[in-house]
């Protein structure tokens, strides 16, 4: 096991290096650069600026330069925000993390509960209703849900704020601040949970259905164990297994931010960085952010593999 983890961690480095090269050249090939996006520049001024930003060098030179910087622990300087990339990420990523982690806990819990209960009584009315709701939520774009929640809870009922993370001009400290942020989080959390719980519920249901038909579950039933014990002790453990892989995928999602939801609720998260920096062709940020997420992606997969092996001792890791 130890050797397995060590090997995989070491393998991360060449994978990441390959990824960074691929990512960099994809960005370099994207039509237009940071200077091209400004329509009112005179041709001479545009050339001057390209030289200032080093955009006049060939892509491979820029990549090596970037790599060299990275080796010194420097992710570079954002062209449009004019602050170090790490500072920029630090500014927004934690807000996204706060939102996403609460959402993660809630929707995994909810999906587990709904998926398992639906699987225990397949094709019942309850199961059908859940299925219908899940697919209804999937069939309409995110902004419909956001707008609907805002209309009901913020405008008509005035129970919750329309958007943002704190009330305008608020100077609250301590608990008052926590409560204020919590109130602003309710609607975005609700939206994201509703959107994401859908597919996970289906996975849990499918996986659980399989588990309930397993021999060990039959044996447990044959032994005359209580149905509840059968479901939650024997079947659930087996049913959870395939879904663990999905948990690994969540790691980068915790930091990447939800683009549409964050925008509609004015949540100051990292979601808009994707769009903004791509639109402006702000390469240092694009590279830094993508690489950060790449590390998390690979790490998430590794963790999932380890968790998988721990949860199911039958699996032999080589």
């Amino acid at each position: 096991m130890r050797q397995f983890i060590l090997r995989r961690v070491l393998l991360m480095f060449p994978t990441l290096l390959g990824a960074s090269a691929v990512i960099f050249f994809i960005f370099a090939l994207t039509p237009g650069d940071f200077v091209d996006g400004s329509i009112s520049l005179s041709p001479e001024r545009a050339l001057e600026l390209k030289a200032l930003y080093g955009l006049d060098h060939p892509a491979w030179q820029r990549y090596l330069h970037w790599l060299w910087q990275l080796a010194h622990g420097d992710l570079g300087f954002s062209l449009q925000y004019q602050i170090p990339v790490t500072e920029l990420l630090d500014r927004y990523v934690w807000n996204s993390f706060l939102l996403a982690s609460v959402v993660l806990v809630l929707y995994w819990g909810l999906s587990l509960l709904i998926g398992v209960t639906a699987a225990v009584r397949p094709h019942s009315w309850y199961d059908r209703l859940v299925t219908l709701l899940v697919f209804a939520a999937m069939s309409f774009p995110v902004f419909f849900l956001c707008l609907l929640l805002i209309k009901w809870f913020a405008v008509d009922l005035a129970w919750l704020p329309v958007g943002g993370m704190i009330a305008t001009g608020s100077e609250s400290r301590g608990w008052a601040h926590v409560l204020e942020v919590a109130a602003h989080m309710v609607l975005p959390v609700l939206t994201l949970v509703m959107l994401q719980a859908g597919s996970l519920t289906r996975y849990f249901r499918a996986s659980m259905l399989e588990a309930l038909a397993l021999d060990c579950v039959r044996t447990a039933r044959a032994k005359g164990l209580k149905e509840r014990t059968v479901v939650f002790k024997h079947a659930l453990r087996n049913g959870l297994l395939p879904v663990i892989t999905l948990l690994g995928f969540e790691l980068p999602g915790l930091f990447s931010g939800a683009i549409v939801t964050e925008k509609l609720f004015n949540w100051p998260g990292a979601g808009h960085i994707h769009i903004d920096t791509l639109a402006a062709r702000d390469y240092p940020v694009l590279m830094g952010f993508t690489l950060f997420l790449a590390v998390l992606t690979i790490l998430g997969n590794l963790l999932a593999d380890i968790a998988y092996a721990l949860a199911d001792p039958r699996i032999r890791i080589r």
Partner: protein
Amino acid sequence: MGGIRFARRRLLLAAMVWGLGTMAAAQAAEEGSLRASDPSRLPAAARARHDVVVSAISEPQGIFNPYLFHNGWDENVTQVIFANLVGLDRQGRPVPQLAESWQVSRDNLVYTFKLRPNLKFSDGSPLTASDVEFTLTLLHDPKYDGETDISLANIKGGADYKAGRAGTISGIKVLDPRTIRITTTEAGAVTLPLIGGPVLSRAYYGKNYTPGHLDGVRTQSARPLGAGPYVYDKYIPGQEVRFHANPYYYAGKPPVPFFIYRITSDATKLQLFQTGEVDNDRFSINKDNIEQLKSLGFANIDIYNSSDYSLVEFNLKKPYLKDVRVRQALIYGLDRQKLVDVVYQGYGSVATEAVAPGSWAYDPSGVNPYAYNPARARTLLDQAGWKVGADGIRVKDGQRLTLTLLATRKLLTDALIPIAKESYKAIGVELRPEVSDFNALLAKRKAGHYDLATFSTSLINDPNEGVHDFLTSQSVNGYHNPQVDRLTVEANATLDLKRRKQLYHQLYQVLAGDPPVIYLAYRKVLSASSARISGFTPDIYNGIITSLPHLKIVK
């Protein structure tokens, strides 16, 4: 029977809508404001604020330096914090701000500014001609990468300083603490706004600055210091920017102690306004939004002309678009009135020249409006030798008249593409739309891989900005017309507004005869403010900035 009645009612309704559209076009130059019908319906959240005005902003990025920002929203923040030497009035004409007055020499080359007495930055330190000198010198730094292109002002010795051939700029001379003289080598209308911009403090920004190293100044973008109506307090990324009133503001301390820019997005700004979280915001202009705002009762609504406009650019490097008759046909053959009606619903008008209504230079008389006329378009194409082929698309020398149109995804193009496709098909032209993001559009345009490209101009303060790109030396699309070159240069070198207006009028007529672009639409801007605040008089050149010192909270 019922069916007939139904149809008639719809016809009537249709006539009304049509009437609205044409009426609005006729009154395009007029501005309007609607006062709140029932201020008592003010939401509690707004009522609870006693000492602060909350306005809205979209996406500031935190670079609060008037010469370093890369984004118009950051500019809006700096306008609150910094004051200009010279400002603009409601028609875009220069007016004194920090400068009490200025004189221009007879040859239009030498500017002498006289500052107001006892000017101070918001920290109480004096603002003098030396600060203006510092600002202009900083802009000539070889490492300066901001949006301001000072070289257009042609300050004497500026290029030498930038190239490192001189230690100071010979054209900038401080005569006394209240007087500064700027000598230029070329006369130009763009010079005054460039040299009369926001003033940076030498004491504050100079302490971290050595020529060739802007990083010190850059780090101060997060802690700006200026002489504007409000003083910067705090920026909470993604949330809001907070300010307090500047006691040293030249026109007196603003009556409302605090000001906040709250960040809002298109999808929910109406809801934020409705619940009282913001006091002022701008909205997409359409009947839905206006009705919604009116129904609130507590909204003061302002509708005014924007200074930008939308257009479709011809690529004149393509031989078939070199023919002026083809270009004219493409204008006659496009139903622009339909576009304006659908998108702006009566709050916009068909554009005819490179300046929007509301500018002092706007004068559509005698400029060919190219009213929709498909028959004329067909005749012109026939004359140009494009004959209708078997499938209805015109052909010349074996080449089909198929045109690619570069566009980005937005409401205007969502309407333009179907309308253009339909109306061009009717005159025998096939349209192939290509949608991409804006940066890619500009890259494709630069590479010349297009026939038509549609986009909107940025806000235009001076009419020169609208025609500058048609100069042979500047044009991306290969436009070349000696008469246009001559008039553009002459109009820019003339400082007398009356004479300039004549020259631009002449230029617009010439441009209409040999069109480099299809002007699509002028639009209006919809702004609303809460009835609890008085004094909002927004216009396109200043936004709400000139209103800030006059705002009052109504008791």
